[in-house]
C-alpha cells in the first residue's frame, strides 16, 4: 500500500509538470463509462459494461457509425524500429487488439502498427509503423496507457513507448531475443507504476518470464520467471535444471488485478518441449497455471496448476476473470478461467483454494481423473506416440486467447468453444527431444458453440451452436462483451457480428461483416451515445443506435 501511495504521489508530480494527462492509472480500477482505459476495460477481466443505452429491447436499431480499414502505408506514418526500410513480407494485419478509448480517441495495434482513431468519426489521428527485424507476426493484443504515454510490444521483442497525443516515439527496449524464437504479442497492463509485459514463443525450448517495466524509462523493475531455478520452491516438479530452465511457460496474454488484495493474476503457457514430456517428468511448475503475483515486487502469492505436466500445447494463458460472487451462501472473491484444456476452473482468488472444476466440452478424451484439488490429470496414453494418438481437443484447445466475458446480472460466464480432434505423432524419440517434438494432423472440428456457464455450479446454462460448413463446424473461440443492457456481443462463426440475449443465448441482432470478428468487442459512452466497437479482419467497426 505504501508503494501505491508513492506511485500516486509520483504521478501527481508528473501531472503537475506536464499539464493535463490523458489517463491517471488510478482510474483504471473504476473506469468511467466514457472510457475503456485498459485491455479488458477494467482490471477484472469480466468485459462487462454497466452501460445500458443499448438493450435487448432496442438493439434491433443498432446501426453502423463508421468503419476504419487498417492503413498500413508508411508514407504518411511516423516510423520507428531497428529493421530494414523495406518491409519484409508479412501476412496482412488483423485486428486482434482491443482498442483503448480515452478522451474520444481510440488507440489500438496490429503487429508493427499502432493507430490513434477519432472515436466519433473513425478518422485517423496518427499512425505509427515499426520497422521490424522479423519475428512471428501472428498478432498483437493491444496497447497500454499511463498518463500521456502509450506502450506496446513488437514481434521482434521491443517494448516501445509513444506519446499518445502525437504518436511520436519516446524510446524502445529489447525485452527478449528474436534469435531464440521469442516473439511478443501481449498488451501491456499498467498497475500503479508497473507496466507489466510478458513474452511469447514456443518453437525452441526457452524460459518464459513476465516483467514490470518503469513507465518513464522502460527499465526492468522486476522479472518473474515462470519456471523455478534449482533450489527454488517448485523445482522438484522438474527432473533437473536442464528441463526447468528451458521449460517454457510463456505468459503471453494480459492478466487481471484486484486492487483491494493488490494481487495481479496471470495465466501461464505450456511447458517445453511442447508435445512430449519424456525429458521433463513431474508437474512442471509453474506452467499451465493461474498465478497471483504482488505487482510491486513480482513475488508469487499463490499458484494453481490447471494442467499438471501438459503434453498438448494447452496453455492456461486464458483470462483469469475476477468474480465477486456467492458460493454456498457465502460471499467470495473468486477467479474463473475457461481453460484451453477443456475445463472451467473456479478458485478463491485470496488464497488460490479450489472451488470447482467442470468439463466444458464433451469430446475431451485426454483425462484420467479429476484429482482431489480439482486438477484434470492427463492419461499418459493420450500423449503423442510414434504411430499416432487420437486426441481431443486439438492443440488449438477447447478455447483460446479471445477474451471471454462474465455478466454479474445473469451470473453467467460466456466462452466460445470448439470440439476438434487431431492425431498427434511423436517425431523426436531422443531422450532429450526439442521444440514441439511431435507432429499434429488435424482430423476436423465436429462442433463449436457459444456457451454460458453458471459460475456457481460450473454447469452449462445454455449453448448456442455456431455456423456449419461442408467441412464441419466453424468458429468457436471468440472475443465477448456483456452489458447491463442484457446483451452479449460476439460472433456466430459464420462471419456475423451478433448481439445475443445474455440470459437465453437468443440472437437478437446481427451484422454481416464478411469475416468473423477477430478481437474482443468493447463499448463506451461518447457525447451521450453508446458505441460498440469491434475488429473483424483488417477493419474496425463502430455501431450505435440509429438517431
Amino acid at each position, binding site marked *: 500500500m505504501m508503494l501505491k501511495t508513492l506511485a500516486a504521489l509520483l504521478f501527481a508530480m508528473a501531472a503537475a509538470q506536464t499539464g493535463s494527462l490523458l489517463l491517471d492509472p488510478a482510474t483504471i480500477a473504476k473506469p468511467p463509462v466514457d472510457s475503456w482505459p485498459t485491455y479488458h476495460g477494467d482490471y477484472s477481466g469480466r468485459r462487462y459494461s454497466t452501460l445500458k443505452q443499448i438493450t435487448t429491447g432496442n438493439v434491433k436499431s443498432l446501426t453502423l457509425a463508421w468503419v476504419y480499414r487498417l492503413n498500413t502505408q508508411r508514407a504518411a506514418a511516423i516510423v520507428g524500429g531497428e529493421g530494414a526500410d523495406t518491409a519484409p513480407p508479412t501476412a496482412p494485419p488483423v485486428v486482434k487488439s482491443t482498442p483503448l478509448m480515452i478522451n474520444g480517441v481510440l488507440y489500438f495495434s496490429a503487429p508493427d502498427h499502432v493507430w490513434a482513431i477519432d472515436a466519433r468519426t473513425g478518422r485517423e489521428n496518427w499512425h505509427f509503423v515499426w520497422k521490424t527485424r522479423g519475428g512471428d507476426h*501472428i498478432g498483437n493484443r493491444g496497447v497500454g496507457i499511463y498518463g500521456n504515454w502509450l506502450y506496446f510490444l513488437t514481434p521482434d521483442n521491443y517494448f516501445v513507448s509513444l506519446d499518445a497525443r502525437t504518436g511520436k516515439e519516446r524510446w524502445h527496449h529489447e525485452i527478449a*531475443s528474436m*534469435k*531464440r524464437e521469442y516473439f511478443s504479442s501481449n498488451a501491456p497492463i499498467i498497475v500503479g507504476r508497473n507496466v507489466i509485459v510478458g513474452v511469447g*514463443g*514456443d*518453437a*525452441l525450448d526457452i524460459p518464459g518470464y513476465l516483467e514490470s517495466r518503469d513507465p518513464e524509462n522502460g527499465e526492468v523493475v522486476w522479472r518473474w520467471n515462470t519456471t523455478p531455478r534449482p533450489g527454488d520452491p517448485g523445482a522438484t516438479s522438474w527432473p533437473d535444471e*536442464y528441463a526447468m530452465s*528451458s521449460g*517454457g511457460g*510463456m505468459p*503471453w496474454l494480459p492478466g487481471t488485478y484486484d486492487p483491494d488484495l493488490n494481487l495481479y493474476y496471470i495465466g501461464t*503457457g505450456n511447458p517445453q518441449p511442447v508435445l512430449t514430456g519424456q525429458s521433463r517428468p513431474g508437474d512442471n511448475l509453474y506452467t499451465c497455471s493461474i498465478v497471483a503475483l504482488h505487482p510491486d515486487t513480482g513475488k508469487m502469492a499463490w499458484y494453481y496448476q490447471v494442467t499438471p505436466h501438459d503434453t498438448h500445447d494447452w496453455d492456461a494463458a486464458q483470462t483469469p476473470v475476477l468474480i465477486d460472487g456467492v458460493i454456498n451462501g457465502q460471499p467470495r472473491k473468486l477467479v474463473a478461467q475457461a481453460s484451453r484444456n477443456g475445463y472451467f476452473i473456479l478458485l478463491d482468488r485470496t488464497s488460490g483454494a479450489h472451488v470447482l472444476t467442470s468439463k466444458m466440452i464433451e*469430446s475431451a478424451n485426454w483425462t484420467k481423473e479429476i484429482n482431489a484439488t480439482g486438477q484434470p490429470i492427463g492419461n499418459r*496414453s493420450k500423449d503423442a*506416440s*510414434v*504411430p*499416432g494418438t*487420437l486426441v481431443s481437443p486439438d*492443440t*488449438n484447445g477447447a478455447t*483460446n*486467447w479471445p477474451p471471454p466475458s462474465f455478466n454479474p446480472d445473469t451470473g453467467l460466464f460466456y466462452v466460445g468453444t470448439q470440439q476438434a*480432434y487431431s*492425431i498427434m*505423432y511423436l*517425431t*523426436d*524419440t*531422443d531422450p*532429450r527431444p*526439442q*521444440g*514441439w517434438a511431435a*507432429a499434429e*494432423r*488435424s*482430423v*476436423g*472440428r*465436429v462442433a463449436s458453440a457459444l456457451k454460458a456457464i453458471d459460475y456457481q455450479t460450473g454447469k452449462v446454462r445454455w449453448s448456442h451452436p455456431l*455456423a*456449419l*460448413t*461442408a*467441412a*464441419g463446424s*466453424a468458429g468457436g*473461440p471468440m472475443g465477448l462483451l456483456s452489458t447491463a443492457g442484457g446483451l452479449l456481443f460476439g460472433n*456466430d*462463426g*459464420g*462471419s*456475423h457480428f451478433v448481439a445475443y440475449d445474455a440470459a437465453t443465448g437468443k*440472437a437478437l441482432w*446481427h451484422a*454481416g461483416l464478411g469475416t*468473423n470478428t477477430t478481437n474482443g468487442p468493447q463499448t463506451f459512452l461518447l457525447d451521450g451515445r453508446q458505441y460498440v466497437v469491434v475488429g473483424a479482419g483488417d477493419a474496425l467497426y463502430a455501431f450505435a443506435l440509429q438517431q
Partner: protein
Amino acid sequence: MIRLVTTIVGGAALVIAANVSAQQPASEFDPAAVERGQQLLSTQCGFCHGANARGGSSGPDLTRSALVQTDEGGRQLGQFLRVGRPDRGMPAFDFTDAQMADLAVFLHSAIRANANRKAYRILDVLVGDGKAGEAYFNGEGRCATCHSPQRDLRGIGAKYDPPTLQNRMILPRGAVTAPNTQPEPAHLDHNAIKATVTVAGGESITGAIVRLTDFDVALYDAASGQTRTWLRNGDSPKVVVSDPLQAHVDHLAKWTDADMHNVTAYLAGLK
C-alpha cells in the same frame, strides 16, 4: 502455444504438403558445411556434449544454449571457444576459421530443424496388427456396414501414405491435393456435409453446405455449379442437415489408439 487456426482443416487436405517437405534441411544451410560441422562436433565435442549436441556425460546441451542460439555465423561461438571456460572444465579449442564456420552451420541447422515443426518427419505408423484390424473392421468397428476391401477400399493401401491413410480412415473429409496447392473448396468434396432447404411453396434443394448460420444458408448446387443463398427467419425456410460421414463422427469417441493402429495396418495391406 498461440496458433489458433481459424479456417477449417478437414481430413488430410492441408496435411500432405507438410509431409513432403519433411527432412529437407532448410535451404539457408549448405549441406556440405552441415556435414563437415557434424563430423567436427562428433569427434571434437561429442564426448561431452553428445553426438547430436543435445548434451552428454558432462557437457550441456548446445542446441538449447543461449550463446549458441544467439550466435551470428560462428562469431560469438568462436570467441568463446578460443578461450573456453577452464574453471568449469571446458577447454579452449583452436579451430580454424573454416572449422568454426562449419561447426556454427551445423549447430544453427540443428536448431532450425528443432524449431521448424512443419518439417518434422512422421516415423513408423504401421505398427498395428493387421489381422486384429480386419477383425475390428468386420466386427466391433462396424466398418463393413458401409465399406468393403473388394469395392470402395480396393487398393487403398497403395493410394495413400500411412499417416494420410490413418487420418482419412478416421474422417475422410477434404480432397487430397498436390503439395503446395490450395485444397479444393470443401463443398466440392463428395463427403461434404449437406443440407436440404425447403422453401415456402414446397421446392426442395439439396446441396453441400457453403455456409449455414442463424441468419442465412448457402448451398452449392452441383447440377448448376452455382451457389444458392436464402436468408433465414427462424424455421423459414426449413433446413435439414445430413452428414454422409455421421458414422465416422459418431465413432470418434469410440476409437482406441490400438484399434486405430490395427485398422490402419489392415487397410495399408490392401494394395
